[in-house]
């Protein structure tokens, strides 16, 4: 039994503990040490997560590198890890983003330059921030690797706590005196929403266990359960299955977030630091959509199909609604948040379209949205930290004084609007085509989203970056080396995965096919498939659909 997965989860966890335990102090050197230690751990995690993805054999078993240790025998709970293509890719995304976020947040947790008289500035602020980020990373990676429903649930819920402290404890410097109140409101809202979702899921988890136990399967092991569901050994029964599905889905839909459960996201992303906002939208929220794919579909195939149309409608509303609200925003970070809501609509739509294109697209979308939104948000954060305001109206003409910043911001925006050649296009198109092939009307309406996306992304760019240079913006420095080091890998990945996403699709496709067979769905066949002789490319490489059927 390989311990690679455990190691991948453990390294950031150990890193969190070590970082938290590093000596406190207000000296710059001590803070720097903390940051470096944390970053080293996150990079080590990246290496391990990369090794996991590299060792994953797309032609092999559904779950690989599996490990299983007895944990709570009384409830059939194991510490069972295993990776499929989807989990491997998403864990890798997490591992890529965390070092970037750490680097981007390098000074976000530094104490205020001149703490007011008599204030009790926490001397462990820096340690706390970096440790919390690593803790989130560890928990998220466990969630992606968990093949035990309970284990997943535990970390799904537990990650709320470090996230909560990250949101509430470390805001950006842009806020006025109101900001502390706003921030704690945002943190509480985040926690309560997600906790409510989690508790509802808890009821469903318990229900699942009780039903399984009644039928002689007192286990939370995902593979056992899904296999039992598939071959009829576990029959949950119509109403119960629907109720359990809704219980699970509710939690995931809050986290994802799906309209109309989204209202915590703009607050949280608006008030948190840019790095934390990235962590929320690019990493933590992905656990929700990931879980829909793995747990909702795997455990409750019939209910998933029953509710798919309703969920598609909600996600469709989310796509349009999020985009329209993004257009109406005055605050840069809230705009990005609403844009994310729109994107999550796409992801969920792809999942519940129940086609391989839709689900592969949704998985890629999770990755690509993570990378591109990270780039967009982090550059926005750099911008905001320079001017000390989140209001769009406070900017203008930035490209004149800080062209590189403006350029990277534009690339982030273009990625968000799914420009071909950048990664999000690949996933968005797959989702659209996957949805369209089963639900044409839904696909067409969703396509409107691409127009709206262009509108909010370019409006934001136009209002902040172009036009005459505003007085307050004059003299704004361009991106520094550290900031470039943050943005460059993200931009490079965005381009690379836009042009050559095959490594990811190769990892993801088998797992998606396995998921689809769990729900007993196959892709709709073309009405008039092209004949096979058209399907072969000149140099013999497989090219079009005909021969794959």
């Amino acid at each position, binding site marked *: 039994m390989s311990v690679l997965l455990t190691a991948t989860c453990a390294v950031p966890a150990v890193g969190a503990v070590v970082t938290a335990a590093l000596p406190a102090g207000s000296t710059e050197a001590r803070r720097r040490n903390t940051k470096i230690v944390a970053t080293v751990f996150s990079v080590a995690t990246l290496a391990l997560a990369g090794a996991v993805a590299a060792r994953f054999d797309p032609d092999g078993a559904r779950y690989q590198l599996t490990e299983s240790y007895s944990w709570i025998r009384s409830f059939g709970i194991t510490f069972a890890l295993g990776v499929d293509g989807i989990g491997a890719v998403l864990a890798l995304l997490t591992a890529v983003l965390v070092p970037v976020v750490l680097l981007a947040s390098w000074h976000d947790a530094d104490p205020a330059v001149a703490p007011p008289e008599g204030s009790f500035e926490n001397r462990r602020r820096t340690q706390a921030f970096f440790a919390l980020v690593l803790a989130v990373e560890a928990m998220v990676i466990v969630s992606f690797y968990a093949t035990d429903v309970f284990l997943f649930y535990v970390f799904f819920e537990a990650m709320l706590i470090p996230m909560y402290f990250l949101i509430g404890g470390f805001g950006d410097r842009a806020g006025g005196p109101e900001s502390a109140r706003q921030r704690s409101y945002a943190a509480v*809202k985040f926690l309560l929403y997600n906790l409510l979702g989690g508790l509802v899921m808890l009821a469903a988890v318990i229900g699942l266990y009780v039903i399984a136990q009644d039928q002689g399967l007192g286990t939370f092991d995902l593979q056992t359960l899904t296999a039992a569901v598939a071959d009829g050994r576990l029959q949950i029964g119509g109403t119960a299955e629907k109720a359990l599905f809704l219980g699970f889905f509710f939690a995931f839909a809050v986290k994802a977030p799906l309209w*109309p459960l989204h*209202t915590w996201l703009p607050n949280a992303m608006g008030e948190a630091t840019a790095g934390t906002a990235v962590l929320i939208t690019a990493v933590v929220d992905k656990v929700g959509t990931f879980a829909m794919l793995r747990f909702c579909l795997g455990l409750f195939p019939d209910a998933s199909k029953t509710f798919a149309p309703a969920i598609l409608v909600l996600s469709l509303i989310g796509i349009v609604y999020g985009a*329209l*609200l993004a*257009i*109406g*925003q005055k605050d840069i970070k809230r705009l990005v948040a609403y844009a994310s809501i729109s994107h999550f609509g796409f992801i969920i739509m792809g999942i519940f379209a129940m086609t*391989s*294109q839709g689900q*592969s697209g949704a998985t890629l979308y999770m990755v690509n949205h993570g990378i591109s939104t990270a780039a967009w948000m982090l550059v926005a954060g750099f911008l905001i930290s320079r001017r000390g305001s989140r209001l769009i109206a406070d900017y203008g*003409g930035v*490209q*004149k004084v800080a062209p590189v910043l403006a350029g990277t911001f534009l690339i982030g925006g*273009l990625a968000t*609007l799914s*420009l*071909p050649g950048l990664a999000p*296009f*690949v996933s968005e*198109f*797959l989702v*659209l*085509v996957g949805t*369209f*092939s089963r639900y*044409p009307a839904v696909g067409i309406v969703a396509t409107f989203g*691409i*127009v709206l996306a262009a509108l909010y992304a*370019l*409006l934001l*760019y*136009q209002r902040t*970056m*172009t*036009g*005459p240079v505003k007085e307050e913006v004059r003299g704004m420095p361009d991106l520094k080396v550290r900031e470039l080091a943050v943005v460059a890998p993200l931009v490079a990945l965005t381009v690379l995965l836009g042009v*050559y*996403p*095959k490594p990811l*699709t190769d990892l993801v*496709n088998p797992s998606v*096919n396995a998921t689809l067979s769990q729900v007993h769905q196959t*892709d*709709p066949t*073309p*009405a*008039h*498939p*092209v004949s096979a002789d*058209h*399907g072969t*490319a*000149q140099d013999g*490489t497989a*090219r*079009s*659909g*005909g021969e*794959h059927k």
Partner: protein
Amino acid sequence: MNSLIPLLVAAPLAGAVLLLLGGRAFDRLGHWLATALAALSFGFGLALFSDMLGRDAEDRTLTQHLFSWIPVNGFQADISFQLDQLSMTFVLLITGVGTLIHLYSVGYMAHDERRRRFFAYLNLFLAAMLLLVVADNYLLLYFGWEGVGLASYLLIGFWQHKPSAATAAKKAFIVNRVGDMGLSIAIMLMFVEFGSFAFEPVFGAAGSASEGKLTAIGLMLLLAACGKSAQVPLQSWLGDAMEGPTPVSALIHAATMVTAGVYLITRSGAIFNLAPDAQTAVVVVGAVTLLFGAIVGCAKDDIKKALAGSTMSQIGFMILAAGLGPIGYAFAIMHLVTHGFFKAGLFLGAGSVMHGMNDEVNMRHYGGLRKYMPVTFVTFGLGYLAIIGFPGLSGFFSKDKIIEAAFAKGGTEGWILGLCTLVGAAVTAFYMTRVMILTFFGEKRWQPDAEGHDPHPHESPKTMTVPMIVLAFGSVFAGGLFAFHESFLTWLEPVTGHEEGNSPLTPLVVTLLTTACMLAGVALSYLMYGRSAVPVVPPYGSPLTRAARRDLLQDDFNHAVLVRPGSALAAALVYFDSRGLDGFVNGLAATIGGVSSRLRRIQNGYVRTYALSMFGGTLVLVATTLLMRSV
């Protein structure tokens, strides 16, 4: 040889990447590098062309598969190229005109501090446009399609400090996005219908699909074409796009990118041929736009906007021709190429004029420039003659063929279309004559610029005039060359097919009618503008003139129908989100809080109240227990 195809795209792409990432290092010589790479691409194009000429007409399709792009089960998108005669034509046009305009820009942008970036964007455009025309499937075409949109966005808004430029850029992108939506839906339809969206398989299987499906695909493709080629109803962005530097207008918004719609429809001929209703829609759009653009062109005082109207109108001709099916495809492309020459030349001329006139664009502030800018005058004049269809020049041959084809459609339809094209030809002559007269003839109406400098018109530098001269050659001779032995038709026929149609009129009659219309337009224009002084301040004008100045109220329409309700909706939703959804959640929390503070009052601190609650509880418990039994 096939391996040269990717290099066509790669050369300018490398230029763009180098110039953008290379930083200051390329400030000094980057523009020459970009020009060289454009020329290199042109060289590759020529090499491929000569290779192609060496083959049989039926064996001229070159393909090159690079790698699998997006493989998901049935959905297989490849980075894979196909170069046939149609693509070849475009490749040569794009790289040829592109190289010339690079050269022109060296002079035109000489003093711009962000010149390096300008050339990077130009190279990016070339790469995207070449990708568009050499793609072997619709998704890769879409890649190039949006790529040119991006380049267009970047270049229209190149002078970002001008709010108008930034707005125009955004507008162009978003209107194009509406069209792009059509293209993506078309691709999805193809995938659902055929399980593929590569040209060859789709065209091969098109016959098996129902006409309704094909019509749907065709209409969606038309929507895409409307966006990119500024056809009604998605035409509104082109006039504003003139905010970009003039070389951009010449290359992107006249010669190449805006004609991508024509390419798309021609390329998809196999689909349109089987979907007559979609074809009808195409010709209607073409006919409406050719008149629309022409009318707008008549009213504009801004030289670039007048030319933009003209571009719209000329593309209307092409779209109309493409909508005619095999009767017109080849002529649509032929007009596209000749238009590429003369319209690029006209824009470069306009740029040259502006260059000499302190960037003045209002023709009412020009006048009598022929003496000061002789080269510009001559090249512009040749372009003018070409566009109005002066016999023997390029435009004469290509436009005449389109008008013939329109009549050849046959029946009432043919008559209507033919008459539309004739009217279009006449109006073209009218507004182009107007441009000519206002700019180069008559007395000086020069005005000092914003800083009070009087203009000192002068001829432009060599880097600018040489491209103009080369393009003028094209404007004069290309048409004749193409028409000679119908060489162009023969060249394209393997790809587009050709039918003669049944024209009620003989070609000679059509030619005479066309020439007559052209002369009438010129004459009317001369009567209106050539014989009396042109007022510096535009007269109030007729309602039609005023509407035409406002682009026939297209922006007002869009504003009233889309923008204002849209922003109202966004604002309403913002309100709903914070008051409705969030209000509900906060209200829930408040309710719990309210219930809590009300319930708290029971805990009033009096021990006897507590005892009472216990006693009451006991009674209820006892009663319930007893009741449970009796039920």
